[in-house]
């Protein structure tokens, strides 16, 4: 689809990215990404190495911590090009979550110890926020840390922990004071997953993959130097996280790549000209433009010093609605051609992952603050309805 950012400078920057990616991206990885197939750990780590070598692995980090020093506009372009070129989207638990938290709130020793290993991929982080009893009501979490000599003993369980099977570290929200208002007794801790007391149960998802897990913590010892910032301030840090890279939550690059893939499938199956298909795809292309234009407009306002807060929730809502709609149009195009089980003798290209992507991406409107939560945030924090 049309590039909105197409000044000569933009074009040169795109060219630079294309050139590097062309020389680095492994063809197997490229093929899996382009077909919407599940990715392997190798796909991610190989690609992280390439990006790290070039200094591009953490687009939004400050330069002094290893970021590339790109402008917001460049970050948008880079995201778009990376998706367009079918590079694998690196999991954000280290690069977009705990990394930025440590940069903002971590102790100097924590930064020095962990940040380089996040950039290099040496450490793989996972996130221990959700609990099975809490869901959208994150602050009612029950995992408890009890004071012990020089540290804490943590017990409880976490769930929806994506890629925990690959991770060696987990950052957790735990309750350190049960006697105060629920948001005020929470701390953030860094836990080595090889410690005794840490165990894992994979959760089989609706699409047949096992990318998420339950994590059990049984009297796991966390020394004081692995607590992030101050005790009982964990909720503040978690909230700050939601604001980090908040302009990226529209997933514009991802949506554009998916749109391109659906258009290719429509062409390949000879159905691109059917009015219902054509209208749906054109409308979704325009929907993507609208959130891209909104992202750019909000960014311009921020750069001009206007304070933008929870408005970005709209990017999450619309972005995920668009992506889910695209996976559904893909199924409309496929018809029965998408119905064979993955990897079975019945699969038909280019629809071999269509059902599974449709199923897997139902999560987009659930995790990271469900779309219902996002609408409530907009209504109360932006519109002042309370």
């Amino acid at each position, binding site marked *: 689809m049309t590039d909105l950012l197409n000044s000569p400078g933009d074009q040169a920057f795109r060219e630079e990215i294309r050139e590097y990616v062309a020389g680095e991206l492994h063809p197997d990885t490229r093929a899996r990404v382009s077909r919407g197939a599940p990715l392997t750990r190798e796909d991610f780590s190989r690609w992280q190495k390439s990006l790290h070598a070039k200094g591009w692995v953490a687009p939004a980090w400050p330069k002094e911590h290893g970021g590339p020093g790109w402008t917001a506009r460049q970050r948008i372009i880079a995201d778009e090009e990376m998706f367009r070129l079918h590079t694998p989207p690196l999991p954000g638990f280290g690069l977009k979550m705990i990394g930025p938290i440590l940069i903002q709130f971590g102790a100097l020793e924590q930064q020095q110890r962990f940040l380089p290993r996040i950039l290099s991929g040496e450490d793989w982080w996972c996130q221990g926020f959700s609990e099975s009893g809490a869901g959208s*009501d994150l602050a009612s979490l029950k995992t408890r840390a009890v004071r012990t000599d020089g540290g804490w003993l943590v017990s409880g369980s976490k769930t*929806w922990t994506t890629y925990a099977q690959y991770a060696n570290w987990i950052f957790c929200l735990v309750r350190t004071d049960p006697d105060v208002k629920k948001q005020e007794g929470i701390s953030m801790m860094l836990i080595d997953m090889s410690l005794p007391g840490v165990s894992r149960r994979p959760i*089989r998802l*609706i699409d047949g993959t096992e990318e998420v897990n339950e994590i059990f913590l049984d009297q796991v010892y966390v020394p004081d130097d692995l607590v992030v910032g101050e005790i009982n301030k964990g909720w503040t840090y978690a909230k700050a996280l939601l604001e980090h890279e908040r302009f990226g939550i529209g997933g514009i690059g991802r949506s554009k790549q998916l749109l391109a893939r659906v258009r290719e499938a429509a062409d390949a199956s000879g159905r691109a000209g059917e009015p219902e298909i054509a209208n749906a795809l054109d409308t979704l292309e325009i929907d993507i433009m609208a959130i891209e234009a909104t992202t750019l407009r909000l960014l311009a306002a921020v750069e001009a010093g206007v304070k933008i807060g929870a408005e970005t929730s709209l990017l999450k809502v619309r972005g995920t609605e668009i992506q889910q709609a695209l996976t559904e149009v893909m199924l409309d195009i496929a*018809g029965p051609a998408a119905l064979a089980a993955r990897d*079975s*003798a*019945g699969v038909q290209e280019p629809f071999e992952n269509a059902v599974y992507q449709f199923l897997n991406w139902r999560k987009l409107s659930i995790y990271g603050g*469900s779309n219902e939560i996002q609408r409530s945030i907009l209504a109360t924090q932006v519109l002042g309805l309370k």
Partner: protein
Amino acid sequence: MIDFKLPDEETLLLKATAERFIADHYELALRNEMLTASAGQLPAHWGEMAELGWLAAPVSEEAGGLGLTPRQVVPFMSVLGAGLVLEPIGPVVMHCAPTLARALPSDKAAAALAPVLAGESIELIAAGPANAPIRATREGDDLVLTGSVPLLIGGAQAAAFWVVAECEGAPLLVRVPAGEASVEAYRVVDGQSAARVSFKGVRRAAPEAIAGCEEALAYGNDLAMVGKLAELAGLIDRLYRETLEYMKLREQFGRPIGRFQVIQHRMADMFIKREEAQSMVFLAAEAMASDDTAFRSKLVCAAQVKIYDNARAVLRDAVQLHGGMGVTDELPVGHMVKRLLLLTRLDGGRMAGLRRFRAAA
């Protein structure tokens, strides 16, 4: 004539046996076990289904069946659909058997159907896609069949196929033993066994073919659609009920989430979609009794469009309202969703239904 009388005793009995069957055999863990079988293996409970008389349900008594009306069979099919059965009950009971019972004179139908209704031989209607029908050409006294069916539920388990073949502009119905076709077995997304079935120059004696079967084929296709819609209406109903239950149990922010107004209105909409699906599947079943084939087809297509639409919407909301649990394989909701996806996309979907609706004067 359309009449919405409450279900009679036979209907309720048949439905009750289906409920017992599901309770006995289709607990989620047992079903997951069945999924590990190879796609070509015979369906686990076929014999029991035959013994229960199910395979004969909507076939006329003259042809050896029980002579139940479509209306009487709908609640039964709803239970089996919502129960996620893996046996090819729809393709055999709602499609193949009633089609043959209409296409053949009753004595011949009774003979042909006897092993099918007894559960000894799984036989299926095999028709190619609309844009690539199977062709029959005459060579001397033989017919030569060429073409394929990319996705036939139960195809890997069948003993014979009743091929719908186009010959000189009209359809013929030709029985082909499975051994003479090329059958590539695989599972579909909801775990059912299926196959790509190809006929590569299969030869049959011409007199064996059944001609003049247009009306029977049309009736059988409409009835098969009613069966599918019954399954979907059952799935919609169960998704609605399980989601409602979850909304009453699951607590967030200190109260059941079903107390939040946004959830309440979403559930009200799901209830409406469930009611509409129930109404439309009965309407379609009633219409099957009409002699006016255009009227019958129009109402069946209307039900198809409405139920497909409602199924898709209910799928989205049932998963969303279940939150994280909705995207796992650990609750029935995830499995129901996959069957619902399959059933709404086996044919041309809402658009094909809408076009046929338009065409039925």
